């Protein structure tokens, strides 16, 4: 019987896809990949660089191994490694991913000097008093009034938004943008049901809550409904 191939190369419109078998040992795989790529190189004309996608199936690669594979491919001419796809992720990665996509509900008042930090979205049932800070990796939804500081998308998510039933913040921060209340705020008009987001000019805009329906359709998590 013919020996099963551990490395399969497929050409697609967007470049090359390397399917790496997940049942052989890593060492074998590396060796075969090196050989395959070396022979392949001769047949290819020296043209523009070709993007490469790597699919490792059900094999888990740690960071060092990923780098090794990438280096191996990069050494060959004309090949540019895009991404390495794997069906396997570690528990830690999943936990992190889950935390970042979770809405954390907190029911209390964030008082002066207190800091509340969550990795994902924050739903606060209560107020943020002046001097208090809320920080979230995702969006911040405040059911009470926001009078302190809110920082959404703290890991650099420009799409994050901040909403509050009563919007009187001392500072708003989204990703790396910052906006603060005017120094002589004399307007006593009620700022109710408002939201803050980053617009195309990379400025924080405060507007009616309803504009988000158009601007951030990805806030929807509920599929269906009639």
């Amino acid at each position, binding site marked *: 019987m013919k020996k099963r191939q551990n490395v399969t190369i497929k050409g697609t419109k967007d470049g090359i896809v390397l399917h790496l078998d997940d049942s052989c040992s890593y060492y074998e795989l590396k060796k075969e990949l090196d050989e395959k790529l070396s022979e392949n190189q001769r047949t290819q004309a020296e043209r523009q660089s070709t993007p490469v996608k790597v699919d490792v199936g059900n094999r888990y690669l740690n960071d060092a191994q990923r780098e090794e594979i990438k280096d191996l491919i990069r050494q060959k001419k004309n090949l540019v490694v895009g991404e390495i796809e794997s069906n396997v992720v570690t528990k830690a990665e999943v936990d992190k991913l889950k935390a970042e996509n979770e809405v954390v509900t907190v029911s209390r*008042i964030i*008082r*002066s*000097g*207190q800091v509340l930090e969550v990795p994902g979205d924050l739903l606060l049932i209560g*107020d943020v*008093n*002046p*001097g*208090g800070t809320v920080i979230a990796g995702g969006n911040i939804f405040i059911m009470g009034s926001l009078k302190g500081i809110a920082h959404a998308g703290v890991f650099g998510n420009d799409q994050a938004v901040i909403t509050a039933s009563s919007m009187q913040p001392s500072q708003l921060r989204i990703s790396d943008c910052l906006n603060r209340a005017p120094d002589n705020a004399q307007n006593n008009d009620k700022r109710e049901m408002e939201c803050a987001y980053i617009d195309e000019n990379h400025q924080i805009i405060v507007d009616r809550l309803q504009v988000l329906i158009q601007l951030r359709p990805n806030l929807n998590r509920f599929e269906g409904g009639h």
Partner: protein
Amino acid sequence: MGEAIVITSGKGGVGKTTTSANIGTALALQGKKVCLVDTDIGLRNLDVVMGLENRIIYDLVDVVEGRCKIHQALVKDKRFEDLLYLLPAAQTVDKSAVTPEQMHKLINELKQDYDYIVIDCPAGIEQGFQNAIAGADRAIVVTTPEVSAVRDADRIIGLLEKANTIESPKLVINRIRNHMMKTGDMLDVDEITTHLSIELIGIVADDEEVIKASNHGEPIALNPNSKASIAYRNIARRILGESIPLQPLEDKNKSVFGKIKQFFGVR
């Protein structure tokens, strides 16, 4: 077994000591056995406000360090029959002379003999504050209708909530000037209460009599005719669990025309 109440504010100068002295006095007037504890070590003045400065022999630090028994350090208030005592703070050392554990032990000992222990807390959030709240069961936060005082009160409430041995703090708004509240130049009572969102236990009008009385070493609560005195007495009764409506803030001495209007029931 008595109850320990800490009087705190965060910000200095809002009237913690005056409030402590008067709540203690008012509770004693209600027939409760009260011990006032000054935890402002190094900057004591509850004894001055109570007019007991001359009688201090031992102080809180002496007790904690075992140089004397508790009852030797307690200063008895002669105006009351065996109801009101003061445990004065030391003046020669600073706040680090006592630890929260020592305070906790001390307050627990006092609770055996007294109905209420009123603890006067120093300003700030450092060790002095930690000492003061260590043995407390309840807390009263004093603030004035100023943004800075309310901000500090908010911070203090946060810290009190974190130390979850204390039941939810109550609020006293001190030094209210009615005419300024009316014109909107001062935060009003509702605004402060909703902002801090804790239960209001009393409001005290700004009254020159309070300063006068403090300087004479006689808590205003002893004077039954002053508005501030009634306010403090009401706070004491609310601490005892009575339900008493808040005093109206309007000035009593209306104009002649106002009196006539009132007579005819015109508002």
